[in-house]
């Protein structure tokens, strides 16, 4: 076999390997996509100031309500969107209670709920919230880009949104959340 024939054979072997390489590439790309949770959408608000809003109080809980002016003020905090009819909210509630006991400020937005049901929920499971605003129409939630309760936003001391968590907070999420709270000071 002459040198050029050997060359050509080598090139042909490379050509045969090409589909395999392409397969591995596409496979790796798809495998990455499989590992992702499609419900965890990035928030359009991360890095921005919290939207302006003013919510009336949850009847019978406090007189104050919750508004943009209550956020920031030099202390990082969580803003939690919840409802008494929402089962995952029930799941995450003990974690919120514990965070509040550990000194984390948590503001609540009660999303499309009945005030008496919401109060009963807090009486039963504990009340971790500093303030609670009642968003019966769900419009403030839309301003925040909420698409399903529970959602939790981490705000820094200037009232800027640093992070959004979709779904119930769980033990494993705290590893990420607590250092971020510390850093947002």
């Amino acid at each position: 076999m002459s040198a050029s024939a050997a060359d050509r054979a080598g090139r042909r072997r490379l050509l045969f390997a090409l589909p395999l390489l392409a397969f591995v590439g596409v496979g790796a790309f798809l495998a990455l996509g499989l590992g992702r949770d499609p419900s965890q959408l990035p928030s359009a608000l991360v890095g921005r100031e919290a939207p302006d809003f003013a919510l009336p109080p949850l009847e019978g809980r406090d007189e104050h309500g919750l508004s943009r002016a209550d956020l920031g003020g030099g202390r990082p905090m969580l803003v939690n969107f919840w409802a008494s009819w929402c089962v995952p909210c029930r799941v995450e509630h003990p974690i919120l209670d514990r965070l509040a006991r550990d000194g984390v400020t948590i503001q609540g937005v009660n999303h499309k709920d009945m005030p008496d049901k919401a109060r009963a929920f807090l009486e039963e499971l504990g009340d971790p919230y500093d303030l609670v605003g009642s968003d019966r129409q769900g419009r403030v939630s839309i301003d925040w880009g909420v698409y399903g309760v529970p959602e939790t936003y981490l705000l820094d001391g200037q009232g800027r949104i640093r992070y959004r968590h979709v779904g119930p907070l769980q033990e494993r999420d705290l590893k990420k959340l607590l250092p971020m709270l510390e850093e947002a000071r």
Partner: protein
Amino acid sequence: MRRLAMLLLALFLVAGPALGALSPDEELADPALEARARALSKELRCLVCQNQSIDDSDADLARDLRLIVRERLLAGEDESQIKAYLTERYGDFVLLTPPVRPATWALWFGPLLLLAGGGALCVVFLRRRRTGLVEPEPLGPDEQARLRALLAERGKETSP
């Protein structure tokens, strides 16, 4: 008769969601504005079901967004203003047709690029094959001698 009516009512209530997501109380009185609202709703993604438009979706949030679309149209806003309002809150993901911008170039032009690349490869491959087939490598002197010997042998065998 009364029982039958109740049964029909119950069936109708069960079938209700299948008849379409838009409920009559959401519709605008002005048919032209309502048509615009429906067309726009078909371009907006329901964030809960993700692969349905808010026009198709029964989700609570989709209903709220349909109402917002109608409120804003009534207030005199145009389609692009409403889209801007929603992308400010929900990001580009809320648009079922992603906008063309540098970050989405790969998405928009990638397939075309792949097609062009594949086409170019095909052309190169086919051309090379055509020329490659008509020009086999010439035989060396050894090979020619061996061929002559084989042909001579075969000639002896077949001739009587």
